[in-house]
């Protein structure tokens, strides 16, 4: 591989190789200040031409690595950074067996963590990133890592991928933390945001989870809070996990302990100010 970048995010390390300079240069800039892994890397990601000539002519980036999806569509070179991010997600989703992986955002305050999970588009990622700018420690927006033995949430503060309208919500942040605007991606307009200094500095500190939130965003939703029973939370989290089935009994044990220990709530909100107020209320009563 001509261009190589090694990255440590929380307890997980990646080696990313690319046939082109650009994706690695963009990664270096986006992840400035992150530590470099000091030993073996958990996962290898390869960005390579889908066919030999596509390295030069209408360059097309195939996402490969230790674990691959046979039918994953390649991306144009202009979206090489997104390809790298998707490559890392793919390794986690298919290959991570040290933690139960939940498709969720997580934030922490006073050593206690809040998990935000829900379908794509429910707003968990945006909400997590916003809370991370307002006094909470941002632990991750794509995957939450639940320790199989210790039952704690381990930070995985990768770059946040802001999509479409949510780009505008972060206009005020230091421009050095923002990646290039990627247009015409499979998920529309995307821009990556580096988590703030605190999130990066404390990426090695796990936290005890105390609450699960299922946020739902909709412009005409009334702000409400509803209790979610342990059984429902369990079922929803099995669907939100990419490796629950692969972990078999270990996954079942970790998840039943998780949902059985503390409350789960569903919240509906129409704008982020409402969401923040709801979260603050819940947090004070927790």
């Amino acid at each position, binding site marked *: 591989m001509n261009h190589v970048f090694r990255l440590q995010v929380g307890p997980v390390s990646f080696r990313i190789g690319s046939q082109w300079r650009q994706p690695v240069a963009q990664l270096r800039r986006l992840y400035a200040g992150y530590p470099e892994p000091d*030993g073996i*890397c958990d996962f290898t990601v390869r960005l390579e031409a889908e066919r030999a000539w596509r390295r030069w002519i209408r360059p097309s980036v195939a996402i490969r690595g230790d674990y691959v999806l046979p039918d994953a569509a390649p991306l144009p070179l202009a979206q090489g950074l997104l390809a790298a991010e998707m490559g890392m997600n793919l390794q986690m989703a298919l290959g991570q*067996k040290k933690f139960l992986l939940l498709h969720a955002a997580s934030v922490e305050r006073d050593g206690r963590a809040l998990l935000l999970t829900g379908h794509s588009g429910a707003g968990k990622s945006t909400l997590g990133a916003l809370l991370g700018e307002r006094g909470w420690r941002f632990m991750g927006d794509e995957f939450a890592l639940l320790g199989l033995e210790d039952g704690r949430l381990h930070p995985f503060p990768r770059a946040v991928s802001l999509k479409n309208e949510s780009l505008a919500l972060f206009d005020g942040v230091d421009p050095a933390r923002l990646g290039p605007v990627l247009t015409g991606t499979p998920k529309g307009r995307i821009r990556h945001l580096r988590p703030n200094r605190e999130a990066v500095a404390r990426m090695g500190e796990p936290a005890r989870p105390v609450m699960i939130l299922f946020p739902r965003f909709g412009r005409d939703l009334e702000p409400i809070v509803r209790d979610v029973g342990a059984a429902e939370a369990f079922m929803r989290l099995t669907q939100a996990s990419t490796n629950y089935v692969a972990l078999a009994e270990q996954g079942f044990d970790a998840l039943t302990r998780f949902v059985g220990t503390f409350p789960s709530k569903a919240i509906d909100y129409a704008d982020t100010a409402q969401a923040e107020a709801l979260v603050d209320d819940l947090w004070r009563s927790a």
Partner: protein
Amino acid sequence: MRDSRWLARLLADPGSAAQVTDWTSLIAIARAESLAGSLAWRLKGMELPEGVEALLEAARRDSEAVRVQALWEAEMARRALKPLGIPVILLKGTAYAAAGLEAGRGRSIGDLDILVPRSALPDVERALLAAGWEWVKEDGYDDQYYRRWMHELPPLIHRERDRMIDVHHAILPLTARPKPDMAAMIAARVPLADGLFTLAPADMIVHSAAHLFADGDLAGGLRNLWDIDRLLREFGERDPEFWPALRDRSDRHGLLPAVGRAIRLAHHLYGTPVNWGQLPISPGRALSGKARRAEIGNCHQLLAADALFRRRLLALDGWGQATRPFTRLGFYVRSHWLRMPPMMLARHLWVKARKKR
């Protein structure tokens, strides 16, 4: 790292772990070759850097879950097929795991492969469909192709468990030149505790070697050769009659050349002890010219053509990336050549090409 040779060396000699400097590359290769679980078990208890040990420990735990799932899938098939009263023989990874063989330790297991008598195929098909398996492809030509020429049914997948089953009635396509004696293979089966069967030890090797060298393009070959190494060691130690039996069975199934090549390459890459050449050829049996040639060097030395196979088996770089495209292409072409006579191949490729458009 030039190719997968490092992985082969480390599997053969875990003591060489101390000399590994680039573990990330080694693990990338092991994952690409589906040998990460096997390697993790092989290196258990060795003095290793902390991060490496953690990664291998996760691989060992994962392989345990894989094993349980594979055995459960076998149990599901056993229940579905029990009323038919036919022998159901487990093949490959599931068989090694079910029989508690060393080859099964840490092995990756994907599909469930079973072997049943050809005459029972229609009943087996009906029973599996009734128990929740479905066809993966709905394509008239492919279906016809499988049924007329192949050694297995078109693949089936279980609609709830999402696991595939390959139902074999032979170990090579019917169009391949060697004609293994399937009746003898099924007759020599070995029972497991739960009513399922495995192949007899010698036939297990014959099947694995046939799969590797008389069929297919050697994708995943290093893993299959590792199976062969483990099986040869375990059977050879367990039973003094094993090696003569292997010679005999290979000859009987017309697969001496494939088995000879497997033994030579296993010995070369994994240091497998070989007891093949010191044994008299079974009396009264005339060996073909090819079979004779397979004996040259008593399987301790590579033949000229073996070097090409070795080149293909090791064609990966330290990123787990395929290398040697021309060698790969050559073996891909060879795999089709082995599978069917030239005119049939031409027709098959023609139909496939027209469908792609």
